[in-house]
């Protein structure tokens, strides 16, 4: 092989090298290290270094840790409910916005802002709105004679408040995706359906819904992945409380690592979380690959 050919051959890899070096050092190495930590006992306050204990941590996660299962359950409920609401609200608002003409641009801009906003600030904003004494929500409810609700302090209601906060921020994303698709739907199809005597409901059901399929998949999958890892908003709203009622998996991992300093166990729990995410992404990539 001549040196020119050799150069051609390695050129693409030199272009990739900086990005992949960064990713390997700060992403893959940490992941491998955490995989190793998952099989060790390493409590910062007690041990000087990690001590190998085999699958002990994973046995604990699955069989001896009710809080892990509770946290998984809370995360799944949170993900399922908020993604469903975001999907429905997003679709509804996008359809509405598609039909309305007055002030469309301004409205569109307003509706798209929440998803770009700093999650911590969103959490704090809503913490004030949910406040049981000074919050605006209880005040407004008071106007229609509903007694004050302990939105964030009651274990029964806290998850609802967290879900609604997330729905406020992220329905935006669904609006964006659905609206983008609605705006490029082929108009002649609808005209043809109209001429053939299809009712509005029929053309919605048989034309719009199937044409939105791809957009629906994108909304569901991206939102599911991001809802599953929720951290920032919960951290400032409730920090997983009251009585662990809003303990998402991310908050739980953080608590094990930075409150109990149990790095080994937190690594094991994060690997369980990682595997769940990878499984979800795999399904996602498969679906999108089929679509292409």
């Amino acid at each position, binding site marked *: 092989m001549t040196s020119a050919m050799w150069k051609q051959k390695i050129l*693409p890899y030199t272009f990739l090298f*900086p990005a992949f070096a960064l990713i390997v050092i700060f992403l893959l190495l940490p992941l491998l*290290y955490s995989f190793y930590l998952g099989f060790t006992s390493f409590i910062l306050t007690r041990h000087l270094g990690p001590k190998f204990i085999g699958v002990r941590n994973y046995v604990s996660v699955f069989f001896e840790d009710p809080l892990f299962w509770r946290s998984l359950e809370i995360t799944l409920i949170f993900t399922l409910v908020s993604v469903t609401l975001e999907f429905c609200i997003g679709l509804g608002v996008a359809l509405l916005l598609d039909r309305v003409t007055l002030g469309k641009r301004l409205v569109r801009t307003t509706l798209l802002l929440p998803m770009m906003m700093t999650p911590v600030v969103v959490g704090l904003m809503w913490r004030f709105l949910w406040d049981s004494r000074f919050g605006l929500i209880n005040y407004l409810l008071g106007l229609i004679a509903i007694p004050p609700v302990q939105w964030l302090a009651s274990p029964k209601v806290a998850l609802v408040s967290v879900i609604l906060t997330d729905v406020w921020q992220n329905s935006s994303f669904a609006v964006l995706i659905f609206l983008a698709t609605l705006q490029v739907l082929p108009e002649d199809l609808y005209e043809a359906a109209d001429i053939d005597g299809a009712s509005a409901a029929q053309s919605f059901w048989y034309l719009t819904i199937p044409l939105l399929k791809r957009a629906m998949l994108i909304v569901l999958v*991206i939102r599911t992945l991001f809802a599953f890892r929720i951290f920032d908003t919960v951290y400032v709203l409730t920090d997983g409380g009251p009585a662990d009622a809003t303990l998402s998996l991310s908050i739980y*991992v953080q608590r094990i690592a930075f409150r109990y300093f149990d*790095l080994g166990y937190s690594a094991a729990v994060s690997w369980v979380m990682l595997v769940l995410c990878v499984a979800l992404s795999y399904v996602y990539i498969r679906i999108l690959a089929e679509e292409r």
Partner: protein
Amino acid sequence: MARPRRSHIATDCFLHILLLMVVVAFAFPIVWTVLTSLKTPLQTFAIPPVWIFRPTLVNYRSVFEQQPFARYLLNSIIIALGSTGLALGVGVPASYAFSALKFRGRETFLIATIGLRMLPPIALVVPLYSIVRSLGLLDTHLALVLIYAMFNAPFVIWMLKGFFDEIPEDVRHSALVDGCSHVRVLWRIVVPLAAPGLFATAVFTFILSWNDFIFALFFTTTKATTLPVAVSGFITEEGVRWGNVGSGGAIILLPVIAFTLLVQKYLVRGMTAGAVKG
């Protein structure tokens, strides 16, 4: 998409009112935060709430006086700019390789890059903490610059690849035939042609770094603290300092809102980079 339909004035009215309610629900929390930031403490806690009042900047003054808020602001700017620069620096050549070059493992690398975006950051926090600590980089700007650049690199690669793919192949080919190297083609032809896309990608990357909380929370203590961590500190033992949350929050949101307006037409691509083809 204006479909010919016999719409009645009544339905039209109803739809507009419904939309107005939706807009109020979406915009209200933001407006309320800004209003709170302009109130005196007494007005903040007034029930019934005060709607009309003489705005005061007391909360803005106090965040800067009681805390090194100006330094946190500067930290946020330095870290977001630095990581955006680095992410683009490594992302541009990588995207070019994915877009214009043929090589073994191309598809695998590409898919792996999307996969990386799916990982939950908390799973990285614990092992990264040990690595950052052993490098002696805890509480430094450099640590966050490197981490954000790494975390956002897959996003940059996918988004830029979409823009690079739009440049006709002939443009690159004729330059290569004329004897230009790939480096020159990238620098002299692809980058200038994709400039608007590059700018949009940079803005998105900036916002992603600016908004991050989780890494900044664990990897900084005082020196490299960023704004989101600083405002979360307004939750104190004695309660939350709502006035400061309002003013601090408004300061954080201002660039986010301005930048969002700036790149509005690229939002779909930004939010779905990797999921939707280009």
